[in-house]
């Protein structure tokens, strides 16, 4: 069956080229994995990152200062102001979540305290009254 399927498959002139390409990519991939796993690569990428951060720092600072002044002149909140507000919002959210937790706990307690059906709920005060009557009488009798 497989042979038949292969025979019916049209000839693809690119197939051998693809095979060669994949073999080359495999070899390349293996050598690259070995390369990135060396101390030299770690050292080189670390140095590149460090250089970038050092060189770009003065530009970033200048842009930040200019932006801060512009925002001040436009009477707009700065990045630090917005961050501070966001932090306060999160704190408020946490307090709300605490209250939600307490409310859930209270609801749970309420449900536990009233585990009766509606007919039971109607009958319950009557039963309680009946139970209470002899005690009252007994107390009265004692007096």
């Amino acid at each position, binding site marked *: 069956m497989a042979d038949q399927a292969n025979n019916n498959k049209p000839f693809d002139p690119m197939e051998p080229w693809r095979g060669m390409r994949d073999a080359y*990519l495999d070899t390349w991939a293996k050598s690259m*994995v070995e390369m990135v796993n060396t101390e030299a690569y*770690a050292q080189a990428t670390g140095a590149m990152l460090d250089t970038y951060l050092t060189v770009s720092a003065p530009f970033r600072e200048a842009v930040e200062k200019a932006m801060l002044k512009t925002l001040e002149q436009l009477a707009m909140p700065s990045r630090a102001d*917005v*961050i501070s507000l966001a932090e306060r919002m*999160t704190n408020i*959210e946490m307090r709300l979540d605490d209250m939600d937790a307490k409310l859930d706990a209270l609801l749970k307690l309420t449900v536990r305290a009233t585990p009766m059906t509606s007919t039971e709920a109607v009958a319950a005060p009557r039963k309680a009254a009946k139970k209470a009557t002899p005690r009252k009488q007994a107390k009265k009798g004692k007096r």
Partner: protein
Amino acid sequence: MAEAPVLADPFTQTADRLKTLSKVMSTKAAIAQTPKELIWALNKAKLYRYTPVLPAEKRHPVPLLLVFALMNRPYILDLRPGHSFVEYMVAQGYDVYLLDWGAPGPEDKNLKFDDYTLEYMPRAIRKMKAVSGSEEFSLLGWCIGAILTSIYSALRPDDGLRNLILLTAPLDFSNKQGLTFARWVDERYFDIDKVLGTFGNMPGEMIDYGAKALKPVENYVSNYMKLWDNLDDPRVVEAWHAMNTWVTDNVPLAGGAFRQLIVDLYRNDRLMKGELVIRGQKVNLSRIRANLLTVIAEGDHITPSCQSESVMTKVSSEDKELFRVSGGHIGIMAGSGASKRTWPHINNWLAVRSSRS
């Protein structure tokens, strides 16, 4: 007479292929399609409950909470219809919840593992318990999510956790020679103070570069070659499109958490040594008593197996299993073989441990 379109065919074919390529490279696939509702939110974090498809009496009573990594979107767990772990688990009768950490902003640069495990997770779990009505639950942590769930499980062993599933969990950092990341973030080469001083949070693009640079040819060349070779196959194109949508949707990692990941874990292996301190409390993995399933991807270049094996000897769980599956870090859960190997195994393991006690 020969038919006229014979000569035109290669051109039409090439035009179609280029059109498909352009679409796939410039648009986002429809992902995360399983119906869900938002039941809790705090700061950027959100807790979703997936709409059950089975009636309550046919569902497992113990809910399942999915916790993914901090620096990627969690919809990899619900990539696309027919290829979604979430969809599969919901169909198997689980009450599934997903904790989405969201993308931290500059105001979140000080968030640490402490906050995620002792502020966010307990609150989300409380809400899940309230909604599901179950005091017991199962946790599934993947990648950094597995670090968070392990820390939580060790610090809160009496919180009702019955089952813990760790997927490709980077917990053991003792084998420095076997970890390329450990070499890159060595203190001799990587100045974490300078990086976080500049960016606040670790930029998603830098994390993405780091993950891709582990296998540069596969990620930057072969991946696109595979797409080019299969542009005529809609199934391959659809899968590639969905995965590419996820891979290119990067999330920054909160500065505080990134510092802990590098300094406490990659450089000093404090979790395995029992020296990791969270809010003044040492994380002792032996306090984990929940039933434990650890899943290791045999072809994982991000979290090699040596990082996930030793947790098995550290925990106190009596019921524990180490499951090895062929595939990569993401492929074992989102690859074409996931629905045949990893998902059924997780389902079979969890089903017998999710009945009412």
